[in-house]
């Protein structure tokens, strides 16, 4: 009896280890996600100062009849300075300079955009929200401790005073940063957006899917259904297994060595990125497809063969459709991994500073993860938040994809 008591105790101990392990793993997920979420959620918002802005016709050297083109060519530098001078008329020139630093460096561009959108602002004074500089942004979001000594921070005490004044006047606003989703990269955290990298990722994945999916399916069909055991088949087998094992960075080297240097394909493009990623994804899809094909019981094949179906008919009428759900699940997972892959893209130059949103796969592009990498390497405090926000976007996408694939697997899970 004591024996049994001891055994029962061991049982409980063992079970506890299990719960502990699962709990810890779940905790990791939670910590990771929460951490990034809290670090990044601010990135979707920006801080703005609301100030009256006068669009002086003369200073801008345009009139009501000027075309958009002319507005675009106009210099807003002067009018901005004038405005600052009027608003902060009781500050010295030097102080105004410092105040100006509270704003985003390209305040004149923002003013220009306002006018482009609303030509009737011309010659009027309008209360306009201008993006605050990243330093103020961080302070306003509470990410930055203003108690540290003045010489260790970019914002000096005078600037803080002005900021506090704005706050007390209710002229500081936290707004949703739609531009974040619409613009490309920028040297300034204030205006950096994910649009170009998202498009880059979309193109990359599209290319990757179009290349890897059909090829993987056909290769799987060949190996599972047609290949006669022999040296070639073994060779193919070994190669596919090896491909699955090759570290992603090696694929990058392949892209660099063969696609760029040998075939002379354009650097930094989604086309090359997609191709490299498709090499990586190929074995994943092949493995998924093959195991789905294998899971189709031979009895189905025999049943069709016995009815006089040819081998091709058996495969395309019965086996492949039955293997499709599993294959798709594998494909989704493979593509999701490809979306998050960075290292190979580093090798083929898809970590570049790209401001323009690419419109074709042949345009220079970065992917989301590469963008994250770039921003994270950036010393600017504001970029940390941008990085985290981009990560949130990427994670949301991946989690959604993950659950879709889980749902898929559940729905089509077949018991024969």
């Amino acid at each position, binding site marked *: 009896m004591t024996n049994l008591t001891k055994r029962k105790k061991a049982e409980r101990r063992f079970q506890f280890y299990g719960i502990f392990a699962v709990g810890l793993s779940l905790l990791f997920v939670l910590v990771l996600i929460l951490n990034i979420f809290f670090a990044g959620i601010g990135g979707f918002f920006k801080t703005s100062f609301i100030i009256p802005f006068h669009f002086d016709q003369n200073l801008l050297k345009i009139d009501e009849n000027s075309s958009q083109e002319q507005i675009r060519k106009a210099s807003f530098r002067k009018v901005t300075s004038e405005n600052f001078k009027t608003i902060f008329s009781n500050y010295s020139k030097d102080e105004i300079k410092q105040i100006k630093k509270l704003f985003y460096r390209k305040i004149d561009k923002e003013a220009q955009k306002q006018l482009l959108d609303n030509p009737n602002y011309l010659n009027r004074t309008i209360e306009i929200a201008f993006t605050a500089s990243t330093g103020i942004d961080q302070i306003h979001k509470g990410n930055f401790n203003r108690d540290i000594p003045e010489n260790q921070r970019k914002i000096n005490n005078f600037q803080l005073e002005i900021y506090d004044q704005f706050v007390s006047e209710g002229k500081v606003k936290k707004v949703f940063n739609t531009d974040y989703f619409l613009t490309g990269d920028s040297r300034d955290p204030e205006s950096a957006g994910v649009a170009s990298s998202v498009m880059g990722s979309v193109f990359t994945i599209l290319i990757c899917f179009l290349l890897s999916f059909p090829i993987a399916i056909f290769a799987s069909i060949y190996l599972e259904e047609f290949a006669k055991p022999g040296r070639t088949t073994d060779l193919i087998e070994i190669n596919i297994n090896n491909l699955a094992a090759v570290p992603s960075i090696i694929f990058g080297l392949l892209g660099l060595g063969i696609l760029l240097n040998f075939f002379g394909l354009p650097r930094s493009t989604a086309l090359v990125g997609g191709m490299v990623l498709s090499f990586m994804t190929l074995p994943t899809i092949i493995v998924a497809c093959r195991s789905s094909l294998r899971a189709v019981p031979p009895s189905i094949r*025999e*049943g*069709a063969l016995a009815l006089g179906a040819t081998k091709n008919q058996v495969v395309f009428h019965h086996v492949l459709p039955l293997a499709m759900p599993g294959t798709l699940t594998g494909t989704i997972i493979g593509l999701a991994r490809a979306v998050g892959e960075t290292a190979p893209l580093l090798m083929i130059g898809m970590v570049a500073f790209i401001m323009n949103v690419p419109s074709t796969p042949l345009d220079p592009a970065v992917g989301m993860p590469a963008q994250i990498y770039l921003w994270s390497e950036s010393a600017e405090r504001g970029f940390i938040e941008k990085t985290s926000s981009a990560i949130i976007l990427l994670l949301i996408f991946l989690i959604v994809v993950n659950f879709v694939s889980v749902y898929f697997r559940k729905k089509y899970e077949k018991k024969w």
Partner: protein
Amino acid sequence: MVNIITTKNVNVHYGDKKAIDNISLNFLKNNVTALIGPSGCGKSTFLRCLNRMNDVIEICKIEGQICMNNIDIYSNEIEVEQLREKIGMVFQKPNPFPKSIYDNVAYGPRIHGFTDNKEELDEIVNTSLNKAGLFNEVKDRLDDLGTSLSGGQQQRLCIARAIAIKPEVILMDEPCSALDPIATSIIEELITELKKSYTIIIVTHSMQQAARVSDKTAFFHLGNLIEEGDTSKIFTKPDNQKTNDYITGRFG
């Protein structure tokens, strides 16, 4: 009585392993012939030679002559798909396609291009289901999945599927071994019904089943054909001592 399938000196090897040793055995038209014998004696192998299902197995080598209606089925003129249109097969485990009941039955006629006409196809499906004794049970749910049927119904669906391409011969490899006694007895009765229009060759582990359903029985042992003849004779007064010993449960 006409022989519909004749085999002469058939040898089958799996790689180096001989599975069938010089068997000559003929099958009478509109008869049920049962192949019995201990496990691994080559019943399935022999059966699968008859519609060339063994072609799929790489290492399987077949020698000898197998003729259907006096035409060598392994000759070059015969397309294997064409042959299997003439010789249907039903397997041990019911294996309906995971499609609708209708599509299961219609699949054969479709791939063989029996008809383009929806009504004609309906007709074929209905008669086939009817012949397989399944029509009344499923007529209201032809769109349900074939796999949603019970085991016995699935097996009858497989029979209907085989019938739909109007074969002359139906091969059955232990068609009841996955079924319970009730489903088994329904299938057995169906078999005796079907033999009016088809020639049936059935492999079975159960001597009782062979006794119940077949007209002729062939007893295999270690790849050899030990004895064949009228079922009633084989089970009451076999000529060969080995047959007798097997049938009466003297194995060791």
